[in-house]
């Protein structure tokens, strides 16, 4: 327990000490939130209706897709995991603790957004708080799993950026944060359902904010949770301590299995 607490405490502090992580965990999402509040509320008054979930989803994406994977890759490349292994740090701690501390940073950002958005931008609060919390946790869990998986399979920092942007950029355009799902063309809607962001926005609408969901919000929740379970499981399975270790337990393309629940959801929801 002491080792876990120590490790957790160190990782949490790293999320603030490390300039890149500080940027991705706090400065980027909060700066973007402030900018969107000032600009989008003027351009599109409807945006305010879902501003809190949209900014929470953005914060989760920034922290998990842009912040979480690269430290894993650089730590592996720098031999930090070798030091961990010879000192008995389990692989599961190496993966789960950064994910948990990232989620904790996201909780802080979510509290800041939820507390200030109604005051600063007249954004409505959730009407169903348990639904809000559960959706937040499901989205954070799913994205943290995907972030870990990207960190585990990426052979270099350059590839990490590529994989992360493959999820982050489409999420910005099609994730329902800027442009509602209902306004997307039919074919694009289907593709958008492959993104965690659209599932989270749908669940937030239907389960937390008392709005009409575009498709079954419970289905979105199940998709997020199933993807999270698969992503965490695959990250642990594919984890490699050492870039020089040529023995791999599975092909990195196995990671694509984590997107299976979204594909099923695209067909069924």
């Amino acid at each position, binding site marked *: 327990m002491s080792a876990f607490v*120590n490790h957790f405490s*160190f990782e949490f502090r*790293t999320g603030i000490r490390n300039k890149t992580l500080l940027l991705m965990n706090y400065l980027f999402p909060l700066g973007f939130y402030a900018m969107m509040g000032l600009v989008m509320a003027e351009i599109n008054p409807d945006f305010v209706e879902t501003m809190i979930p949209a900014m929470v989803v953005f914060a989760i994406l920034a922290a998990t897709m842009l912040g979480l994977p690269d430290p894993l890759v650089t730590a592996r490349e720098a031999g930090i995991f070798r030091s961990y292994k*010879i*000192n*008995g740090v389990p692989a599961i701690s190496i993966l789960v603790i950064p994910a948990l501390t990232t989620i904790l940073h996201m909780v802080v950002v979510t509290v800041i957004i939820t507390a200030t958005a109604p005051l600063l931008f007249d954004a409505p609060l959730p009407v169903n708080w348990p639904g809000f919390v559960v959706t937040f946790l499901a989205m954070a869990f799913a994205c943290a799993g995907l972030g870990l998986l990207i960190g585990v399979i990426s052979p270099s920092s350059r590839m990490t950026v590529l994989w992360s942007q493959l999820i982050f950029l489409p999420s910005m355009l099609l994730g329902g944060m800027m442009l509602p799902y209902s306004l997307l063309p039919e074919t694009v809607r289907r593709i958008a359902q492959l993104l965690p962001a659209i599932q989270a926005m749908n669940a937030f609408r239907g389960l937390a904010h008392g709005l009409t969901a575009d498709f079954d919000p419970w289905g979105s929740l199940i998709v997020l949770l199933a993807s999270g379970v698969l992503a965490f499981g695959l990250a642990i399975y594919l984890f490699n301590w050492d870039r020089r270790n040529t023995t791999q337990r599975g092909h990195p393309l196995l990671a694509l299995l984590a997107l299976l629940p979204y594909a099923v959801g695209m067909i069924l929801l």
Partner: protein
Amino acid sequence: MKDPVISVRDFRKTYGDFVAVDGISFEVQRGEIFGLLGPNGAGKTSTLESLEGLRAPDGGSLQVMGVNPARQSRKLRNVIGVQLQTSGLPDSIRVDEAMKFFSAYHRVAPRYDLLDRLGLAEKRRARYHQLSTGLQRRLALALAVAHDPPVLFLDEPTAGLDVPSPVELHNLMRELQAAGTTIILATHDMAEAEEMSNRVAILLRGKIAATGTPLELTATGAGLTKVSVRTKGSSLSDPAVTFPAVSQRVFKDEYAIYFSTDVGPTVSAIIAHVEAQEDTLIDLRVERPSLEDRFLEITRTEGTNTGGAQ
């Protein structure tokens, strides 16, 4: 009585078609300092890292304190301490945090006294990336011994250290050995290996080319012992005077220097000759071949035997 702590039997490690270690066997006894020597690519690191559980062997068997490193990694962690040649810590971790972090995983109290002992007292609050390479290696050593492991692996422990640091490291190694710790020392520094090791194994191209105590190894080579003699008079200056077992003679800085294949008869004959000439001996030095000389001889011989491959 023999009490092997480490047992390596027909150990083999390959990387694709490249055979890094080709069926080596050796044992290390409790409380020994065992030097693993060899040029780059000889298989030292593959052997060490397989014993440390970082790599899986492709053949043979390895045992460390009765533990199979490839299969019982959790048990292994508490019986070994490792200072890796290449490893790292998170840039932002502080020196005292690192001690606390790893001690917690070993379930022991942090040994801050080791930080003081290894010259890190003033750097306790410094972050890892702020430390010089030498200080980073000292920290790695402090972390390796903090849980008082019965077996310690040191891979190039003095590489990157400034001049006084190896002395402190060697003192620590002696203390640990006196307390019963078994130490495996991989090093390029032959003087260090000769000074510190009870036994050494010289690895060449994945095989053990020679093994024994440093004294045994230096005595068994074809290396010549250097006998330097200085006298008051000129009893040794006549080039016609010869001594048994001397293969070469030179004069330098008032010394007559003889290279002998059998030092006993040579020295006896020199002394007898000086006395017979009623001369006075001022200085006589006998320098046996160093481990480095022997190492170079072995690597040259093996290179010749295998067609001069690297």
